[in-house]
């Protein structure tokens, strides 16, 4: 049973570019959440997708957008990259109907230069 998988594992982008990060949830999970973890900090909630809709959103600008596909996988898009967007981006999946714990992927390390 594969856990949460994220791709790519590392990415280097130039300021002003756009980036897409991908996440496949754990088998049987239908809810995907994205978090941004700056170096030396705790993860910060970006948004959550359930039934292909954004259900909750954290304090992030509109440059951060997402999508969830019918197979429950998800993408995180960031436009007009800033140096401050450099971080580890974590995806977590859970089953929406129950209060189960979230399972995390290994993250995508994004570096903006």
């Amino acid at each position: 049973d594969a856990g949460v998988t994220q791709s790519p594992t590392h990415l280097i982008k130039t300021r002003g570019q756009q980036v897409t990060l991908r996440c496949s949830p754990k088998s049987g999970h239908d809810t995907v959440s994205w978090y941004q973890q700056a170096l030396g900090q705790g993860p910060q909630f970006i948004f959550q997708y359930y039934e292909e809709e954004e259900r909750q959103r954290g304090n992030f600008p509109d440059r951060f957008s997402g999508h969830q596909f019918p197979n429950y996988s998800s993408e995180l898009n960031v436009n007009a990259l800033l140096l401050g967007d450099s971080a580890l981006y974590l995806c977590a999946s859970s089953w929406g109907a129950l209060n189960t714990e979230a399972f995390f992927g290994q993250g995508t390390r994004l570096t903006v230069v």
Partner: protein
Amino acid sequence: AQTVTQSQPEMSVQEAETVTLSCTYDTSESDYYLFWYKQPPSRQMILVIRQEAYKQQNATENRFSVNFQKAAKSFSLKISDSQLGDAAMYFCAYRSRPGANSKLTFGKGITLSVRP
């Protein structure tokens, strides 16, 4: 809004000894979950232990146990018989109830080192 505070940035423990990691939180809710997550250098967040606020009994998972003080809004993690593999960053996290469609609010984390 809920907040989670981990005031100790680093701690160190001798192998086989016991260490306690502190966490406090602030919320106006009466029903919620609290978690401790471990993040080793591999970066993947691993759930260590979970506590439901309505349960008075402190959660335990093998060598890991918590001291949950609801009135004081305190949630500490005790690691007994520390092992080299316990070295990692540890994050305390809060999650509202009801429903699973709710975010995790994390503290800043604490780096735990284990001395052989």
